[in-house]
């Protein structure tokens, strides 16, 4: 599929507490942002993919949430839901449709309105007895504690991820949390789920993002410098990692497998990647992801951030957008928002947060934790 699909337009709403916007309005803002970027109107959209974890109130768990928001009727729309990999998996499905030749121009849209739902926005799902008491930070914390115990990492190293991503996010006018934080602030914040304090966790966010993709050959009709999809990968492992007696809790096999698929399709290796948007739902997750994606060896991710190599001016900038940590994490929107960031960076339009020599970018989501991961490699020319 390498180079058969191009991204010709991207859009993204301001992420944050979007109390003044409904779920459908966020979708509308993101979609029309992308239409304008691609220079098309909705009549040219042949199929659409909606990535959403919790559709808007009254929308039902179907694709109608996108169809009604955009009055996009009488053509295929598919809803994709795959934990926190929802957004990138929606994008991947859109790419497969284009590559298969069933649709030439496809809209991929990720949207979430968590703040409509009270509390943390995510209702408890799953078995009423097994794993009861789990929370998203708590589940990732299980891995973080085992990892930190094994590799001798301290909370001070985790804090460096928060400091870096808040710095990047402060440069990004669409980010949710646009403020710098100090390591001391991170370390002194109230504990959410040990070892994660408040600033080790991404916020609960509203937002939507969109990408318009098309077959590679007509792409230059829409955009003189389209971005091409080099590789995609998706891998599912157990959704009950805590019951798997063979699991070492030192990283996520699904990310390793999805990365292998995407690199193989793209014909590249991790050293060829110029920058990456990775799933930093919690600070530790970014450290582990950089290892699972092959940017360094297992156990070396802490040093990568300590040495500033993942900073904006490092040799492998990670989360130049601010990441989930600062940009926010509206679940289904996040993956598409990462595509938006990668395309913006590859076009050289990222302004103050622009990374140098952006030829090949990578977007990565992991959900579950570790149950499902999706990796997308994007490049110029």
């Amino acid at each position: 599929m390498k180079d058969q699909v191009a991204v010709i337009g991207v859009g993204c709403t301001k992420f944050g507490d979007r109390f003044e916007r409904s779920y459908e309005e966020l979708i509308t803002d993101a979609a029309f942002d992308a239409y304008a970027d691609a220079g098309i109107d909705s009549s040219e959209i042949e199929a659409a993919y909606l990535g959403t974890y919790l559709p808007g109130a009254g929308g039902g768990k179907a694709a109608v949430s996108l169809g009604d928001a955009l009055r996009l009727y009488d053509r295929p729309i598919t809803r994709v839901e795959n934990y926190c990999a929802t957004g990138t998996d929606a994008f991947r499905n859109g790419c497969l449709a284009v590559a298969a030749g069933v649709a030439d121009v496809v809209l991929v849209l990720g949207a979430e309105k968590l703040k409509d739902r009270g509390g943390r926005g995510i209702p408890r799902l799953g078995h009423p007895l097994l794993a009861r008491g789990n929370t998203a930070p708590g589940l990732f914390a299980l891995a973080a504690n085992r990892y930190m115990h094994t590799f001798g990492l301290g909370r001070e190293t985790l804090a460096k991820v928060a400091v870096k991503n808040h710095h990047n996010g402060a440069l990004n006018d669409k980010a949710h949390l646009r403020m710098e934080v100090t390591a001391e602030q991170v370390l002194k914040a109230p504990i959410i789920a040990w070892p994660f304090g408040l600033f080790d966790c991404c916020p609960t966010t509203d937002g939507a993002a969109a990408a318009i993709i098309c077959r590679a050959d007509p792409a230059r009709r829409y955009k003189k410098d389209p971005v091409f999809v080099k590789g995609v990968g998706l891998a599912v492992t157990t959704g009950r990692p805590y019951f798997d007696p063979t699991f070492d809790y030192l990283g996520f096999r699904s990310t390793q497998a999805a990365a292998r698929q995407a690199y193989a399709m793209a014909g590249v290796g991790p050293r060829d990647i110029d920058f990456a948007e990775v799933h930093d739902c919690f600070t530790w997750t970014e450290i582990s992801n950089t290892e699972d994606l092959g940017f360094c060896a297992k156990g070396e991710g802490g040093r990568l951030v300590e040495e500033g190599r993942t900073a904006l001016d490092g040799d492998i900038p990670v989360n130049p957008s601010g990441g989930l940590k600062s940009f926010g994490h509206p679940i289904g929107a996040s993956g598409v928002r990462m595509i938006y960031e990668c395309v913006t960076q590859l076009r050289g339009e990222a302004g103050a947060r622009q990374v140098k020599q952006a030829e090949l970018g990578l977007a990565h989501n992991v959900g579950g934790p570790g149950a499902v991961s999706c990796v997308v490699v994007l490049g110029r020319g």
Partner: protein
Amino acid sequence: MAGITRIATYVPRRRLDRTVIGQTWGTRVAPGRRAVAGLDEDALTMAVDATLACLDGADPAHFDALYFASTSAPYLEKQVASVVATATDLPRATAVADFGGSVRAGVTALRAAIDAVRAGSVRSALVVAADARLAEPESELEPLLGDGAAAIAVGTDGVIAELVSAASVAEEFTYFWRTDTQRAVQVAEPRFGASYGYARDVAEAVGAALRKAELPPARVARLALGAPDERSAADAAKRAGCDPGRQLVPSLAAEVGMLGSPEPLALLGRALETAAPGDFLVVAGYGEGADALVFRATDALPAARPRALDLARALPVASYGRFLKARGFVPAETAGEVVTSVVEWKELAQDVRLHGSRCEACGLVQYPQTRICIGCRARDRLVDHKLGKRGTVFTFTIDNLAPVAEHPLPMAVIDLEGGGRLYLQVADAADGEVKIGTAVELTFRRLHEAGGNRNYFWKARPA
């Protein structure tokens, strides 16, 4: 020869210093502490804990009866004995019964179990009494009551104390009561009740049992008398012609409070910690009369002596508010769903008996029960496998976000002895106690309440 083969007592780790109650209400209280069942504990869960301690690894398939006694059962309609029997993995062909009505139910159930064994209608039985009686806030009973459970195995093999005689008294007397609309135990004039509703009846039943055994009161080695307060057992002992100072098993009032139906059984357990073969032991329970049983310790006792009751390991209940919360006076989490009866039935072995699977192809023990091995992918080679109840923390978190009534909530991934890995809430942990490598044991707890019913499930606690 029928009698007691095993005995164990469970006391919740949480203790409330009575001065906290005294300071809250500005009242004088007796010194000492009372045991407090946690928000996730009740008579059912403590009964499971006591029964597991009593079994202490013995094969539950050996037992064919389980009697549960309590005045504070968490259900008015729904049998508790069958839940306890299932959670402790007794066979389906088990005779079960719930005893209640008054706190003498523990001794009554013990008598019924020994009678059933003697009659040959059951081979060996488990008797478990448990109470977490609620007192009205600011009442005299509030500092006095304590929560706990005691379990006794009854049979004919390996008897450590054989039944010699039994006697009962039955007569209406209004002393303690709780109507079907009252949550907390009510009490009539306590001094009159202690004298006429307690000491008189207990002395009469003990006297009658001793006469049946042709045993002069002075020959009794230990008297295990359940009591309404710290002082009245001595009065009952005296009225029965005994010397309280020499013969009475000391009250648990100062350390755990008045336990209700498990109290005489727990005191009998204390007596058996030190009794010599040939010693006569008397146990009695009260309430609208009394039941008294006379036992003689056997030669098998020294080799099968019950473990000493460990009251040293305690977690302080930090405030009166925490106490009210533990006793259910503060609304608990009710979000989410209760397990449906269909799922409960389908998953009974997995969720209540706590059976996992063992792969016949690769040997991996795993949980929950599925069709395909997570280790080698062999299909339908997984066989039912009872999981161990002790293990080690592989990893953990201390969660402040989970929608539960008490924070922080330790959650742990636990590697079990004998294989299998579980992910459970950790109960009764002190600050810093849960970490990688912490030894834990499993305990059956009230997990969650919703839709007018309760979910019970396993948790871990530091071993």
